[in-house]
């Protein structure tokens, strides 16, 4: 039982990170119909920013803040430079644009920074263990659960209590009509990207804190997981993305924990199989939006 509880906590921690990532994808998709595969590179940018801030001598908390600021700026610039010119184009065009942005950034990281991983000096205090009764929880795991919940709560408050948040929800439902409210399309989209950047930044810091290094290809796997989570949840649905993230984390952890040893190498295949099963019964995802009005 204790082990099961422990695994549940593990699932919560992993699922939380997936949820943040999927949410970052969903925030942008819900508004302009773009699946931003360069979302992973926003994590990488964050990692480099934290890394260089630490090398530069900033204390860890300031380095994290710098990392998040860089992530938001990078997301903002991505929108301004790459995605605004193709806004309203077909889904395929948007998708290919995001692949190109991702590939270009990776090559730039490799050629301008380093192809090799750069170590990030994560403070030793983050490597500790917290013991709650019979449960052991790594400091970073605990932080990642707390930060995820805080982010979800904060985003929820933002979306429901502020005008910009209401505008985002409305834009996700019907962007054209939102413009009839006199709200600038560009600023709504920019807000969406900034939020997406913040989410990627937070996930990036958590990711880097666990791995202890940054490399140019770091973002590849997480963005894939985020994509799967967002699909499970129903692309474009924010609560769906969160649910999808937690579900994917839960599936992965439980399979890792309880698959017999001989089947363990096929864990990811089983995880994807379960995802497909979910989609067979809910082709639109768990919490699909009922209407999707495009620009």
């Amino acid at each position, binding site marked *: 039982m204790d*082990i099961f509880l*422990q*695994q549940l*906590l*593990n*699932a919560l*921690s*992993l699922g939380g*990170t997936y949820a943040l990532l999927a949410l970052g994808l969903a925030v942008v998709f819900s508004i302009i119909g773009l699946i931003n595969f360069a979302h992973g590179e926003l994590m990488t940018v964050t990692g480099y920013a934290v890394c260089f801030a630490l090398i530069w001598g900033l204390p860890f908390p300031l380095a994290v803040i710098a990392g998040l600021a860089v992530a938001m700026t990078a997301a903002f610039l991505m929108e301004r430079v790459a995605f605004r010119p193709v806004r309203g184009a077909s889904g395929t065009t948007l998708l290919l644009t995001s692949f*190109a942005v991702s*590939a*270009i950034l*990776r*090559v730039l990281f*490799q*050629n301008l920074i380093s*192809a*090799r*991983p*750069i*170590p*990030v*000096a994560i403070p*030793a205090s983050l*490597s*500790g*263990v917290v*013991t709650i009764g019979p449960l*052991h929880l*790594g*400091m*970073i*795991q605990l932080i990642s659960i707390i930060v995820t919940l805080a982010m979800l709560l904060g985003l929820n408050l933002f979306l429901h209590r502020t005008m910009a948040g209401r505008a985002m929800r409305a834009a996700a439902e019907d962007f054209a009509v939102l413009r009839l409210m006199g709200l600038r399309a560009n600023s709504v989209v920019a807000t969406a990207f900034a939020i997406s950047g913040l989410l990627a930044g937070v996930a990036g810091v958590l*990711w880097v804190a*666990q*791995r*202890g*290094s940054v*490399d*140019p*290809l*770091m973002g*590849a*796997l997480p963005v894939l997981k985020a994509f799967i989570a967002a699909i499970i949840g129903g692309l474009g649905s924010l609560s769906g993305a969160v649910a999808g993230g937690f579900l994917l*984390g839960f599936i*992965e*952890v*439980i399979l*890792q*924990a309880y698959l017999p*040893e001989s089947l*363990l*190498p096929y*864990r*990811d295949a089983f995880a994807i199989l379960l995802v497909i099963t979910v989609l067979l019964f809910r082709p639109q995802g768990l919490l699909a939006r009922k209407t999707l009005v495009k620009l």
Partner: protein
Amino acid sequence: MKKSKLLMLSTAFVALASAPLMAEDLVIGLATAQTGGLAPYDQPNLAGLQMKIEEINAAGGIAGKFPIKTIIKDTRSDSAQTAMVAQELVDAGAQLIITPCDADPSIAAGMITQGAGIPAISFCATTPTLPLAVGDYMFSNYPADNVQAAMLAAHAIEAGYKTAYILTSPDTAYTLKLPQYFGQVFTAKGGSVLGEGTFTMGQQDFGAEVTKIAAMDPKPDVIMTSAYEPDFPAFVRQLRGAGVTTPILGSDGIDSPTTFGLGDLVEGVVFSTAGHPTAGSPLEAFNAKWTEKTGAAPDTIYIANGYDLGNIIEAAVTAADSLDPAAIREGIANLENLQGVTGPITYKGTNGMPLRSVSLVRIKAGDRDLVAQGQPDPADIPAP
């Protein structure tokens, strides 16, 4: 648009590198990863090799008469691209081809070079079956997985470990087979493997796996894994975070600054690598030379490993006294006890995976402490 610019750039780069060739030049085609997942391994090897080539050319070429020309092309860490690049290099007249630091793209390139009768050497692929998969024109330049595993297992027995847990990833031959070879040798020498866990490469979360290990009863005496960046740091952090203090054995993939940057978490970890700069050793001298030239100490053994590849090429071509690819192949295959900066290197009597010494290093206060160095007992080395 942006893509085509990149393409033009790389084409221009290749055009520059392939300036008109002299009749007596040895043309080495380098199909190496400048971008992608293998770049961190190919680039330091390439840097080391280029240093050796500069030295050779400064002395008037190999044996004073064969200057080296290189054609360098990016494989983007992609096997299909590696095969394409290999074909281009063959067409460009390369007499020797260097392939990336992994078996899969090396096999892809090997299919081309074997057919063309041109010898190919992988920078640092460690999969012992690589030459078997390609043929007699394929070589590698690093201690093979089974050799590293035998050294590690011998050390484990000597250290008094009775039981082990191995952690593998089916994602690459290296992360899967090396720990399994270790398990084979460890079992053959009287130890027992209590279990085998798996992980997905690039996946940060080892929570589920660590919880399983923490709950094992009885606990293993040692954990062996070939996980490397970013998996190894994440694994160690979470394992130690869960209060598990079981000793860890690793392999050469973790010989990186990130590992040493983990501080107390990796204290006592023992891993296998291709060399260790003991006082007065050739490697120490090489490191000093490199530091003098570049202003920074080498941060990985792969630089010296690439330099040794230059030594191998020099010795093989000298022995062949010819630029005929078949003669160069003969030259490599008959090298025996060549003194490289990382230790003695022998190809004679092997299938193409060299016999080289392996160093076992213990991490101690952020520094290296040599545990053992040499070659394992041939009887211990498991068949590939």
